[in-house]
């Protein structure tokens, strides 16, 4: 029995083949979300990478930066390279992933991500920054991209009745990964540090090995359903909803549809606005509420935001199963606009509670945007190539990763250079972000079902399964 295209290499790595991952009777589909979480909880570490930045500026001086130590600006490139490679890997490996299945993809992702840490540890040991760019940035970034998209189609196929909830669970793990990695990194650096070592290399080796094992376990337990499998008691609706198709669009054909670019814009704008305000949350809270929010409280505030970012991924993606993806994004943009525009007002009234509340809701919608997009793609383009199409769409994330911080920093600097007080400079930023969300609202409003001419014919679909 085949599920889709089969690649059977046999030999030592034969267990990675798609044919070896087809679930046998007795397998519960609820084993698949933990498999996906094994990967996403690890790769979510990327959001906590900044915890290494300061220690890595003291590799020679140990207690303080010495001549020859790396600068923060140089270290900032590690994260940027990783995010760019994430987008590129997701875009270019989607079709391969679709061919080889989730296990081989998760296995490869584990090798790349875990291996990236080990190469970076060597870079720290030899004090060669290029090795860290190559290790964590390029190898780790490719592992991130591949790992991010690898369980998406599998989850959607196992949960045709609740695709939003299923992908929301996995992508929630990506949000939670940073919450584990941040305290774990601090603990490990404390453990490995000595009067002659800040402990970064030992931490990289340990984390690389932990992530390698954890992700491998995910690869071992993941399964794809047999061809044509449906959950017991579930019958696909005879009259599908307007925005949900039973047909399939080829990944290359999807790029020819306006819907792909509309969704690309929707994701890019939602993420741009979210990243933009997330990056300035700590400084903004302290400058808008001087004396009320201390540096320690601001760090707690950022932690709280990461928690709401994670919760929002599951909440909104699950909600979208009931209210529809288009409506969910309408809420993100409409409510987002109101909240972004209202944040400066909380500063004027001095209400810390409202400020925190508004920011937390904003963060749920930022995370929710990531988690709801795979199910949105499934609705619009069908299941067959949803993994590959999702991979291509993630270039929007890479773009937003650069656009968001640059936009916010540029606007802020321009304001301050023109004599605007620091606390007030945030207001303009928030209004501009609300403007971006208005554009996102319009793009989402323009979403319609794909024109019939883009759907694969029965013959094309059959051929794609047999290749």
């Amino acid at each position, binding site marked *: 029995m085949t599920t889709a295209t089969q690649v059977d290499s046999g030999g030592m790595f034969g267990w990675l083949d798609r044919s070896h991952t087809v*679930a*046998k*009777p*007795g*397998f*519960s*589909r*609820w*084993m698949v979300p*933990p*498999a996906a*979480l*094994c990967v996403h*909880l690890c790769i979510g570490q990327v959001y906590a990478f900044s915890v290494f930045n300061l220690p890595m500026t003291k590799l020679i001086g140990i207690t303080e930066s010495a001549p020859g130590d790396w600068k923060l600006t140089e270290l900032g490139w590690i994260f940027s390279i990783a995010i760019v490679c994430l987008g590129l890997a997701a875009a270019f490996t989607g079709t391969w992933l679709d061919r080889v299945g989730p296990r081989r993809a998760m296995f490869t992702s584990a090798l790349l991500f875990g291996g990236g840490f080990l190469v970076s540890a060597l870079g720290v040991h030899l004090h060669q920054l290029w090795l860290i760019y190559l290790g964590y940035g390029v190898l780790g970034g490719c592992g991130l991209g591949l790992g991010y998209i690898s369980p998406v189609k599998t989850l959607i196929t196992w949960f045709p009745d609740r695709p939003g909830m299923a992908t929301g669970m996995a992508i929630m*793990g990506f949000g*939670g990964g940073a*919450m*584990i*990695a*941040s*305290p774990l990194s601090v603990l490990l650096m404390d453990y490995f540090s000595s009067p002659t070592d800040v402990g970064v290399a030992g931490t990289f080796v340990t984390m690389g090995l932990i992530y390698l094992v954890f992700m491998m*376990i995910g690869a071992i*337990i993941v399964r794809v*359903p*047999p061809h*044509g*499998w*449906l*959950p*017991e*008691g579930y019958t696909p609706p005879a009259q599908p909803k307007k925005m949900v198709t039973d047909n399939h669009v080829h990944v290359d054909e999807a790029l020819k549809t306006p819907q792909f670019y509309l969704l690309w814009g929707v994701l890019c704008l939602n993420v741009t606005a979210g990243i933009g305000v997330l990056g300035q949350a700590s400084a903004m809270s302290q400058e808008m509420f001087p004396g009320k*929010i*201390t540096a*320690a*409280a*601001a*760090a*707690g*505030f950022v*932690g*709280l935001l*990461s*928690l709401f970012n994670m919760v929002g991924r599951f909440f909104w993606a699950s909600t979208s199963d009931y209210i529809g993806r288009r409506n969910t994004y309408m809420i993100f943009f409409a409510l987002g606009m109101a909240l972004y525009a209202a944040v400066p007002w909380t500063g004027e009234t001095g209400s810390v509670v409202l400020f*925190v509340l508004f920011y937390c809701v904003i963060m749920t919608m930022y995370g929710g945007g990531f988690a709801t997009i795979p199910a949105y793609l499934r609705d619009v383009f069908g299941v067959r190539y949803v993994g590959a199409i999702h991979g291509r769409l993630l270039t929007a994330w890479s773009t937003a990763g650069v656009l968001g911080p640059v936009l916010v920093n540029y606007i802020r600097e321009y304001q301050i250079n023109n004599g605007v007080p620091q606390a007030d400079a945030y207001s303009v930023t928030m209004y501009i972000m609300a403007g971006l969300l208005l554009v996102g609202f319009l793009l989402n409003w323009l979403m319609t079902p794909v024109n019939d001419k883009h759907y694969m014919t029965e013959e094309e679909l059959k051929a794609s399964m047999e290749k």
Partner: protein
Amino acid sequence: MTNAIQPNQISGATKFKLALAWAFVSVPLIWGVLNTLERASQLFR
């Protein structure tokens, strides 16, 4: 076609595997969430 056994038909061994798999991912996640909440409590002191 329903080849895989559904939740209402899950065997004892499968239930054990499910519990193990969910515990494997939940324990570190809960640890991370508790750490975050502890840090976040600074905000309300």
